[in-house]
């Protein structure tokens, strides 16, 4: 019987699963990856931008010919207060030269490429196959059920994304509750590369990451993003579920309480901002997608292993939602690679016990994955402060109004203007407390 078993079955062809399949294939293991979509990538949504520095050392040379979109040289943040906006834009000359720090990416293309690389290493990748359940043997995970078939394996890797049914079935996952999740909507607009470069002020091949905060979320936790791809733009909103579920009365600081705040309307309002209209003018909507994001940082992790099984990527809760930016792809790749190495060692030792597999958690703790999760553990708390998404953008807007407006009255000094704006919108004591809490992140 033992001989009929595969070395490993991977559930899910996202970045975590594909990275693991690649490494196990490379190690000469018999590995099968099952993906429910038409192709790896066809169910996956990201903002998105991937930072390569943390993961390059894990897969040296691997990303050199990856089909990324554009390397990011320009960072912009727009604070929105109703129809008033404040734009901060930053270009680092260093980001213009290889090795590039980060790239924009479209997952359908990227994941398919990743999957081809993994197959070249000998991994079996089967799309259009949903895993329905885990296969148990003597109280330990011993494979999966898919499409009415039993697939026995020494090891199972759950890399099935943020909703992870596999981690749930193995009683490893934290319950899915609104306070730990955000919902994101995203639109892809086709646009000629020349127009993209002109509108964003970029040289050919260069990319921009533009984030939006403030009243785009009507005061709720979250923010907007606009990324440049080769021939398209990715535009979207990330919205904390908990805040969305509450009635609009609680967010009437902006006096917008009576407006509609269902998710599709928030997206429509976002698109109708002149600051967005200028970029997407004449562009053609190609796709409308949505996905959830796990946002509780290190506090929201699932248990990472049990007898015969490991959990990686979003399935394990390895994602950081910092309101305006989300990080998860590097964690997915890194946890997939680390999981594969531990599975490889377990196969060598023929030991699939939870005790041996605890090595996986140990390795993750030594890596940037758990270290970053820990560092940003407080982010969720700090960012939950509604002032960050309501009054601060309004405060900055009034301050700049005071600085740049010349009216009939004599001008106040800058310090007076700043204090007036702070007092009016935040209260000095609150501002001081917020300053203290920001030092935590």
């Amino acid at each position, binding site marked *: 019987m033992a001989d009929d078993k595969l070395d490993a079955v991977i559930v899910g062809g996202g970045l975590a699963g594909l990275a693991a399949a690649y490494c196990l294939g490379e190690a000469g293991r018999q590995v099968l990856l099952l993906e429910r979509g038409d192709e790896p990538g066809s169910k996956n949504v990201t903002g998105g931008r991937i930072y390569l520095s943390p993961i390059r050392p894990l897969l040296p040379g691997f990303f050199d010919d990856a089909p990324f979109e554009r390397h990011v040289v320009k960072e912009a943040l727009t604070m929105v207060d109703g129809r008033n906006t404040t734009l901060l834009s930053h270009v680092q000359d260093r980001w213009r030269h290889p090795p590039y720090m980060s790239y924009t990416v479209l*997952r359908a293309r990227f994941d398919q490429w990743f999957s081809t690389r993994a197959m070249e290493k000998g991994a079996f990748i089967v799309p259009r196959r949903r895993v329905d359940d885990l296969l148990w043997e003597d109280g330990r995970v011993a494979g999966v059920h898919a499409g009415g078939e039993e697939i026995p394996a020494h090891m199972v890797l759950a890399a099935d994304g943020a909703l992870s049914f596999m981690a749930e079935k193995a009683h490893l996952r934290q319950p899915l509750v609104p306070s730990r999740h955000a919902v994101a909507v995203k639109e892809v607009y086709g646009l000629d590369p020349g127009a993209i470069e002109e509108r964003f002020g970029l040289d050919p091949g260069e990319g921009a990451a533009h984030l939006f905060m403030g009243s785009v979320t009507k005061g709720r936790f979250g923010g907007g993003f606009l990324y440049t791809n080769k021939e398209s733009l990715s535009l979207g909103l990330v919205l904390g579920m908990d805040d969305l579920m509450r009635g609009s009365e609680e967010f009437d600081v902006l006096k917008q309480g009576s407006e509609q705040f269902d998710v599709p309307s928030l997206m429509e309002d976002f698109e109708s901002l002149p600051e967005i209209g200028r970029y997407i003018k004449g562009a053609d909507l190609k796709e409308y997608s*949505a996905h959830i994001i796990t946002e509780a940082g290190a506090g929201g992790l699932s248990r990472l292993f049990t007898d015969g099984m490991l959990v990686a990527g979003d399935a394990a809760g390895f994602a950081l939602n910092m309101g305006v930016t989300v990080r998860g792809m590097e964690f997915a790749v890194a946890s997939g690679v680390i999981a594969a190495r531990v599975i490889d060692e377990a196969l060598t030792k023929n030991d699939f016990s939870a005790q041996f597999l605890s090595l996986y958690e140990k390795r993750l703790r030594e890596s940037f994955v758990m270290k970053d999760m820990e560092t940003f553990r407080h982010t969720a708390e700090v960012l939950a402060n509604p002032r960050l998404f309501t009054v601060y953008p309004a405060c900055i807007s009034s301050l700049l109004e005071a600085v740049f407006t010349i009216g009939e009255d004599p001008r106040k000094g800058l310090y007076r203007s700043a204090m007036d704006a702070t007092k009016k919108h935040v209260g000095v004591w609150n501002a001081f407390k917020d300053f203290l809490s920001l030092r935590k992140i």
Partner: protein
Amino acid sequence: MTMKVEEKLTRNAIKNAKESHIRLDQTICRTCVERPCIRLCPGRLYSQSEETGEMVVEFAGCLECGTCKIVCVRKSVSWEYPEGGFGVQYRYG
């Protein structure tokens, strides 16, 4: 000027399964006051039928985000992924 979500959904590639992957327990829905599913579904696929008063979800446009599964804290929503190869197929993602 902006496009409504109903039209946005027509841009997606979707292979529809015959059966819905989302089932609701109407006895629970009847007791639900806030109905967060209606506001939070990014596809605006949830609505209350004017004739029967029952909750309806148009699963054919589903983006498979799972939001309704999470925000329905009364647990009326039974939600699973569509069978392999069915449902939305993102060409960009």
